[in-house]
């Protein structure tokens, strides 16, 4: 094959690869701004349907929510990592099975500030590390 043709094909592939990487970076940045920082001071609110959070600026995948229990030793608390996962304490909506009896403090439709609500539960959030 003509050497010039190979050169042109490679250049076109290179440019399209770089452009696609740039576009993916742009979409990642818009997602990145939405991720909740969970490793700062205080307890962050994380919605149950969230897929990723930030821990010290680093994007981590959410593995699971667990009901908060008193942990005497916390070797796996972020940033310490245990076999690819660590935990942080977060607030989130109570799961349906954990609610007993009539729901108290039922939020009004206008109540959009979840952090201010008193009906949030405390969870142990396991994230990848």
């Amino acid at each position, binding site marked *: 094959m003509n050497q010039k043709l190979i*050169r042109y094909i490679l250049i076109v592939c290179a440019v399209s690869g770089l452009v696609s*990487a740039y576009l993916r*970076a742009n979409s990642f940045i818009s997602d*990145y701004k939405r991720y909740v920082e969970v490793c700062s001071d205080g307890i962050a609110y994380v919605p149950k349907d969230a897929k990723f959070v930030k821990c010290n600026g*680093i994007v981590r995948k959410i593995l699971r929510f667990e009901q908060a229990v008193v942990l005497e030793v916390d070797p796996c608390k972020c940033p310490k990592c245990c076999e690819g996962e660590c935990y942080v304490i977060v607030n989130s909506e109570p799961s349906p099975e954990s609610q007993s009896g009539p729901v108290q403090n039922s939020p009004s439709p206008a109540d959009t500030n979840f952090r201010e609500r008193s009906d949030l539960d405390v969870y142990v959030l396991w994230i990848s590390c």
Partner: protein
Amino acid sequence: MNVIDIPTRKISEFFKRRIVQLIARFALGGVFVYASIEKIASPRRFVNIIINYHILPEKLAIYLGFLLPWLELILGIFLIVGIFVRGSSMALSFMLVVFLAAIVIKSLNGTLSTCGCFSMSQTGSDHGLTFYIARDVFLLSLGLLIFFNQKKIILSRN
């Protein structure tokens, strides 16, 4: 003629040999192509590793995390195929100097657990600073060898 001139000239001629140039190009290009594949496959992890260096602002780190692996792949392929050889070897040498500086800075901060050079695993690595420096200096010497000994190819118009 100075006595030292003879081995120096011999070494210089050795490095200018086509086969030596070819081996150096394939070695350096191959290393960068290999290093880029996992980063392109999982850019989020690579972005995390760059952010973890705490050298660049987050936005710049994200752009770099997505674009750098493609640059490594492209420049590596250019070296292997033999187009833009001087430019590619210069760019890769510059990148190696930057990588070297980043690794040294992170190591001085005492937080060098993984360099993110080849594997995206964020668990601790067995390799120490000396290994990373030796590897990067070796690759840098390959890049400079290619750059300074590559004959300029002049395409005949006939």
